């Protein structure tokens, strides 16, 4: 680890998520974006044929890397799948319990893991900022056994109250809340991954719990960028920054065109536990 070690917030979240991906599980991801890149990265790093399904009905494709330029409109994204079906079919597979884990991006998340991808500010009919909508996140977060959420650690993103609840976490956190809303039992958010902290959820209270913090950050630093105060794990792990191997694979093999470069650049100095963030600057085009 050298003083020139640098990565963006998006790259960090992708690398951390890739570490959470298990070889023998089945994943559900959106057609493009960081969640899919995290799986492709895990594949690349481990040489494993990690399987995922996509909303358009593609089951277990072998998307070539580098990824195609316009993934959402490229036939290559579906190539070498074991089956081409349709949206209802893959949702049924999730409903039947076949999909272990959904990996999703969130605009806002609350302390129970409910999240927003609809709008922020204003009201529904006159939003300050409108996003694409729930997409498939609502069904993925409802039906898969576990959900991993990717977002950035910012006060406007870790909110007390969502501007809009697009997709379910543990709802109000009371026991059985998801079941009372008609969702299948024993499901829910599992991890929330950001560029400098990873959260889980407390089994009893269903409240978000800080599990790991980057060595160049701190618990106070993390809590300072959240509107609510999460539970803190008894032993908060140190979250190693993206390794050179991870970043190399992501940048050179998965996405040489640099589409994953989003959020802010983080420049680190130092070594091991003495790592320090020396610069944060916006990445180009964000």
């Amino acid at each position, binding site marked *: 680890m050298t003083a020139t070690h640098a990565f963006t917030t998006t790259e960090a979240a992708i690398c951390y998520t890739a570490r959470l991906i298990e070889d023998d599980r089945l994943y559900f991801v959106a057609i493009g974006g960081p969640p899919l890149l995290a799986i492709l990265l895990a594949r690349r790093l481990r040489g494993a044929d990690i399987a995922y399904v996509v909303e358009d009905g593609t089951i277990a494709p072998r998307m070539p890397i580098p990824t195609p330029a316009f993934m959402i409109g490229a036939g290559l994204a579906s190539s070498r799948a074991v*089956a*081409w079906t349709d949206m209802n079919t893959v949702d049924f597979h999730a*409903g*039947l319990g076949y999909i*272990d884990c959904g990996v999703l991006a969130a605009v806002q998340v609350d302390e129970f893991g409910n999240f927003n991808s609809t709008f922020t500010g204003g009201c529904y009919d006159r939003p300050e900022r409108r996003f694409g909508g729930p997409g498939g996140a609502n069904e993925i977060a409802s039906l898969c056994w576990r959900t991993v959420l990717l977002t950035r650690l910012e006060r406007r993103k870790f909110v007390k109250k969502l501007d809009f609840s697009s997709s379910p976490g543990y709802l109000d956190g009371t026991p059985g809340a998801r079941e009372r809303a008609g969702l299948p039992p024993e499901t829910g958010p599992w991890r929330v991954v950001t560029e400098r902290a990873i959260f889980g959820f407390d089994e009893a209270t269903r409240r978000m719990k800080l599990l790991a913090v980057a060595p160049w950050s701190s618990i106070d630093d993390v809590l300072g960028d959240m509107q609510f105060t999460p539970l803190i794990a008894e032993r908060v792990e140190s979250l190693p920054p993206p390794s050179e191997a991870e970043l190399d694979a992501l940048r050179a093999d998965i996405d040489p065109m640099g589409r994953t470069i989003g959020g802010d650049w983080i420049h680190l100095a130092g070594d091991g536990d003495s790592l320090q963030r020396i610069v944060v600057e916006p990445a180009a085009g964000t």
Partner: protein
Amino acid sequence: MPDAAREPLRSIALLDEGDGAYRAPDPDGMRRFVRDEKDRRLVDKRMSEQDAVARFVHDGDYVSYDTNVWRRGPASLMREIIRQRRRSLWLAAKFSAHDATLLTAGGCVSDIDVGWMEVGRVINEAMQEGRVRLHEWTNGALAYRHLAGALGVSFLPLRYVGGTDVFRMSGAKLIEDPYTGQPICLVPAVNPDVALIHVNQCDMYGNARIFGPGLAPAETAMASRRVIVSTEEIIDPEEIRKHPGATTLPYYLVDAVVHAPFGGYPGTVPGLYRADLQHLMEFGAAQEQGTMDDYLDKWVFSVSSHTEMLERRVGLQKLHQLRAEETHTEGYYT
């Protein structure tokens, strides 16, 4: 947020319901089974029909198959079930043929959900003696109940069954449609313990292709806890990935892949071989003459496997003939 303790907004009338016996739908139980018991890895699932039946078919199971012993049916698996003397099976006879008769003759069956099935002396005697109970549904309602199971819900609304004795004897309910206010029937989902599906091609992981029309192969496989696929042909997994649009079942639904050329015998697998009418007549005669025990001994118990049956009871010449006489391959293999 809804709360169990909260007063309902209003109520929906349950107008009528049948009083038939059926397994209570349990989509959550199905989900847990899938989570805990089904393999999401790409693993080699090839095994003999003996192993597949020994591992995945148990006494008391609800068993569904597609289509039937006359056409692309899992006939070799059915004979293995008889050979292993499974008992108290509950069959889903959605447009069944003599499958139910065969399994009943083998002593394997206690209950049959009936859409349509061939009925003769075996079923009649079993009913008279109380060995087999029938539960009247319809072909479509059974296919639809499998669809409900495949969708992971406990029921689906449908616009038939109502008004008949089928409704009265079934697990259907008639409710006030919460959207239109009109009466609408509901039928309960079925999640079979095991599905038996005979397919044209399958790779070692269970990615399976079916050619030709069918009853509800995809719904049946999706709805079932265990899925045994028997296949005319094992193909390379890379071949599957070259034509993803041709896949009927993805691997993770499937528990066992049994290589069974002529697995549909004595029925046809369209495009590959025709039905053996002589055998079907032999079966019919055995039923009428009350000599099903002899039939079963000849075709099931006196041979140890499907392959041995083909060799010793059918013979290569007949197999060649059945293939040669299936001249219509268009749409299947050409």
